Structure formats: C-alpha cells, structure tokens
C-alpha cells in the first residue's frame, strides 16, 4: 500500500483516455493477472497519481475527481469493520471494479489480436484487377404498336388548335312555351305553380331553359289579360290561374 507513485506513468491527463484507462494501467503494474490485484493498493496508486498530476485542468479533471471520490469511499468502506447492513457490500463493489477492469483489458487484448491477424488489404491481397463475373443487365425496352399510335394520337390531339364550337343545346323556345301555356289555359288552370306546369323529365339544362321561357310566356299572357299570377312573397312559388 506504500508503493511509490509509479514513475513509469506519464503524469499527464492526455496520456489516458479516462480514469478507467489509468486504473487498468496501474492494475497491470501490480500483476499480470488482473484477478489478483489489490484493490486497496490500486486506490492508493490512483490517488497518488492524481496528487502528482499538476497539470490538472479543472474542466477535464471532473471525471478524475469523481472517480477519486468514489475510490476513496470504496477504500474507507473496505477498511472499516465489516458492517453486515452495508448496502452495497464494499467487497462486492471491489469485485465489480475488478471485473470491469478485466472486461476492458479483455477487449483491449481482443482488439490487438484482431489487428494482428492477416488482414485483407494489408497482409494478404485479393486480385488487383478482377475481370468481374457480374451479370450485365441490359434493358430491353418494350412498347406495343398500340402504345405508339395512341401516343401519337394523344400528342396530335393535345397540340391541335383548339376549336371552340358551342354545341347546339336543347332549349324550349319562347314560342314553344307560349303555345304550351296557351293550350293549358284553354283546359282551365287554377292556382297552379308555374313549375308544376312544366313538362316532366328532360335534362337539367333543358328544364332551366323551359322554366325561363315559360316565365316569359307567363308575363306575356298576363300582359294580354289572358292569365293571372300571384306570389305571396319574394321567392315564393308563382301561382298561375286562367282568367275566365
């Protein structure tokens, strides 16, 4: 426990990747077999090292000091008379630290062994300029004659000058509406809505036309005194009746 601070270790934070890294190096100084290291001695080594590290930069040092505090706690727990109530058991903590160092050491060792293998591209080489066995995929384009002529039709249709021809629409002319309404008045109409006098069916465009023409026809027949119409209020149905 009175081992002097290891002079072989550089007293500089930069040399170590972290407290665990340093702890492992210190442990390796004790024994080759990490299973037999003395944790108490390790704690002292670490604390000694930390004291001698003069260039401790505070912002970097936090990790190191936390580890130091934890190790100091572990040391005192190990030295104090055994308290069966202690949780966690300091012996177990020491064992876990030891395992952790072993694990890191094992991985470090494994990494070194990996790197020492005959590595492709460093120790053994594949063929420098292989001809290649790859399957060359050549697209075979497909299109049918129908695709072709349909496409041409679409292109021509798209680019042809667009001629706007207003198609002849189905309408009920004013003359037709007058004739119809006159004929109905002859058979006697009493208080019928104008809409009910329209012929049934027909497409919506035609019905709109029939309604408009019949309305004008109604006005005309009223002006001639042959028909009377009434409306109870704005937008209410128009009611039509014969003038007897």
């Amino acid at each position: 426990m009175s081992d002097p601070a290891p002079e072989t270790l550089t007293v500089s934070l930069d040399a170590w990747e972290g407290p665990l890294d340093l702890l492992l190096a210190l442990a390796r100084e004790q024994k080759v077999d990490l299973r037999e290291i003395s944790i108490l001695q390790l704690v002292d080594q670490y604390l000694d090292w930390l004291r001698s590290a003069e260039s401790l930069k505070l912002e970097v040092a936090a990790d190191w000091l936390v580890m130091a505090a934890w190790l100091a706690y572990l040391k005192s727990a190990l030295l104090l008379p055994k308290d069966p109530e202690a949780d966690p058991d300091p012996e177990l903590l020491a064992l876990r630290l030891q395992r952790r160092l072993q694990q890191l050491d094992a991985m470090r060792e494994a990494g070194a062994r990996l790197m020492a293998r005959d590595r492709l591209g460093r120790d053994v080489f594949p063929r420098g300029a292989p001809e290649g066995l790859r399957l060359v995929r050549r697209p075979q384009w497909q299109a049918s004659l129908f695709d072709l002529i349909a496409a041409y039709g679409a292109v021509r249709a798209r680019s042809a000058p667009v001629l706007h021809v207003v198609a002849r629409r189905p309408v009920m002319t004013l003359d037709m509406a007058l004739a119809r309404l006159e004929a109905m008045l002859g058979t006697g109409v009493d208080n019928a809505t104008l809409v009910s006098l329209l012929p049934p069916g027909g497409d919506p465009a035609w019905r709109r036309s029939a309604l408009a023409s019949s309305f004008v026809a109604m006005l005309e027949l009223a002006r001639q005194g042959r028909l009377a119409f009434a409306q109870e209020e704005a937008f209410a149905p128009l009611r039509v009746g014969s003038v007897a």
Partner: protein
Amino acid sequence: MTPDDPARAVEAALFAAEAPMTVDALAQATGVADVSAALVRIQHDYADRGITLVEFGGRWRFQTAADLAHILRREREEPRRLSRAGVETLAIVAYHEPVSRAEIEAIRGVAVAKGTLDTLIEAGWVRPAGRREVPGRPLTYATTPGFLDHFGLASRRDLPGLDELRAAGLLDPLDAITSEVESGGDAA
C-alpha cells in the same frame, strides 16, 4: 514450390497488381533478381490451368484462359416499359422522320429530355439521320429497321394516318374533354 522460391513473390505481386507490370516494376516490387526466369516458370506452371500469364508490350498480367471467357461476363435482358415521353417521342419520329429535336418539341409541346432520345437509340429504334441544311444545322432523327421489326410493320406507310386515328377514336380524347367542360359550364 519452396517457401523462398522467388516465383512465389512474382506470382503474388502480379496477382495483386491493379495494372499489368513490367519486368522492372516486378523486380522493384519484389526484390527478385531474375524476374524473367520466374515469369517463364510461372507461365509454364499455368499453361494448362484456368488462368494464364500473358505479356503485352512488355507488361505482364494474369488473365482468365481465353476458352473460359464465356463464364466471365454474361448479359441478361430485362424487359422495361418505355416511359410515356419515350413512346410519344418515338411516335413523332416515326410519323415525321427525319425530324429534329426542336421539331419533336414543337409537336409534343413539351421539352424532350436528352435521356429520352438516348433511350430510343439504345433500344435500337431511333438513329441519328444527318443534319438539316438550315441555320444551326440541327441533327435529325429517324427510325431504324429494328423499329419496324419490333412493331411488326412492313414499312412506315403501315402506320395509321391521322384520319384513321380519328376514326379509331384516337384523336378524340381532347374533344371529349372540351365538351365535358362546356356542359359542365352550362349546368352551372
């Protein structure tokens, strides 16, 4: 071969090389004094194998035996459908050939991507057909015999004309759309 046979080093160096190597380069790379003797030896060893050692213009390399070349690189054809732009461009070339790219664009009303004509040329259906003697001397395109073969046409004259297209309803789509719009407008 014994482990210190110089031919082993020459063989390995040639195998790993990314380009054929001269005798000098091999000597420098391997430190072997008599590279030529090693090469003769290796060439002899591989005489009947699937790999042979060959020399072109003083440079040596391993290559697959000539009679086995067929296993090296195989082509497989993958059916792919031509894009709509591709079909339209092909149709315009077929109906209007020889036709320049600008003319194709004028007829389509859309720019023609460079890749579209390339694809048609790669498919073996379209070929460059000389330059037109007008300002700018634009390159023109025409169809190939392969085009006629693929589409089962004896000649371009077998393509349906505009009247026939109209009769078949293939020029109608636009009319249909227009009248649709009109009646919709009326109903409103």
